[in-house]
């Protein structure tokens, strides 16, 4: 039920978080910030069970869809932004970011501006486990492990008020850092090895 992360006890035995003791622990960072409505909600188990008994799988190919997907998309659009119009479903966050990058590039191709392909993200940001999501991730440790990056990704300084070294107000300065990164000519440049680019 809880999280599958493990740790070693002093006696060398491996224990798992999914024990009654850990279930009673306060989950300060539950499932990487996943939990909104918390654990052990029987009605969520019931919803899964009922749907599995009704239609357990339905392909979303060739324009097909299914009732829970349509109803959920309507709910999400209703709670999201005034300009929100449609939802494409994935299986996880990395795939969501991959899809968003592809949608953005596709948008400009449809608008006959195929040269618009750069994706600017922020230093320190984490965007997911897949290769393009890692290329948007502004953490050098991942790039060292799994480089080279997917072409077209650039990182700019984040609005990190506590460690902001510039003279500008950090929110303005960090937004302007994105503008500078965009305005650089030529191909995307890789993440600098040390200090953030401003």
């Amino acid at each position: 039920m809880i999280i599958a992360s493990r740790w070693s006890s002093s006696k060398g035995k491996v224990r798992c978080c999914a024990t009654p003791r850990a279930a009673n622990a306060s989950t300060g960072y539950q499932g990487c910030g996943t939990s909104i409505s918390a654990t052990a909600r029987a009605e969520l188990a019931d919803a899964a069970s009922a749907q599995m008994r009704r239609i357990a799988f339905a392909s979303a190919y060739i324009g097909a869809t299914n009732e829970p997907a349509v109803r959920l998309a309507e709910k999400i659009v209703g709670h999201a932004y005034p300009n929100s119009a449609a939802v494409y479903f994935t299986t996880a966050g990395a795939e969501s970011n991959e899809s968003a990058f592809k949608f953005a590039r596709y948008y400009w191709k449809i608008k006959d501006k195929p040269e618009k392909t750069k994706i600017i993200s922020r230093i320190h940001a984490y965007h997911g486990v897949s290769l393009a999501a890692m290329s948007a991730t502004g953490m050098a440790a991942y790039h060292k492990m799994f480089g080279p990056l997917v072409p077209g990704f650039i990182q700019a300084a984040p609005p990190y008020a506590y460690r902001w070294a510039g003279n500008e107000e950090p929110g303005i300065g960090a937004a302007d850092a994105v503008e500078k990164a965009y305005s650089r000519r030529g191909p995307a440049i890789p993440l600098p090895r040390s200090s953030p680019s401003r």
Partner: protein
Amino acid sequence: MGAGGVIVPPPSYFPRLREICDRYDVLLIADEVITGFGRTGRWFALGHWGVEPDLVSFAKGVTSGYLPLGGVIASKRVHEAIESAPSDRRFMHAATYSGHPVCCAVGLRNIEIIEREGLVERAGVMGRRLLAGLGDLHDLPVVGDVRGLGMMCGVELVKDRSTKAPALDIGWRISREALALGLLLRIRPGSADPPVGDTICLAPPLMTLTETCSTASRRSYARRLRPQRADYR
């Protein structure tokens, strides 16, 4: 920004970024995988600053993790472009498990719970309480910065408060002590270059008990984050 150390943008940031994107005809993608579905005290985070992104990526909170599900929200502008694409350039982006009915049924029920129990509003109220409670940790010299928005908070640790020299290899010890007190934490490991101290990241469920968020109880986050040993106080 979540896993990167809970970096909360100043109010000027996103409105300015939207303005820059509009000026250069650039799309704005909001990665709301952590912030989506109420965690910050709004259904989606850019609502705090009245900014509308063109694309939103989400996951985690849509099902509260009960089943794997994520997605992308497209704005009218992007959706209409995709819908109006000529047939020789039509949109091809399909996946076997896209819109899985069981995951979506759980997501739907999860959102009904969030609505029924007012968890988005609760995240705002409890988040302010949590941040105020964690603010008490400022009396510890090792605490450099305490920040947060709604039910996500970061406590950045430093060796020296005046130079902000990052405290490294201390987070995991605090994490171990907190676990002994029954509190699960995530530590964002710091680095010397670029300088970032180890950061304690908190993102508890939105229905976390009031007493856990305030400082009055021994079971509170702030009380259990206080170092128990003298060597890194």
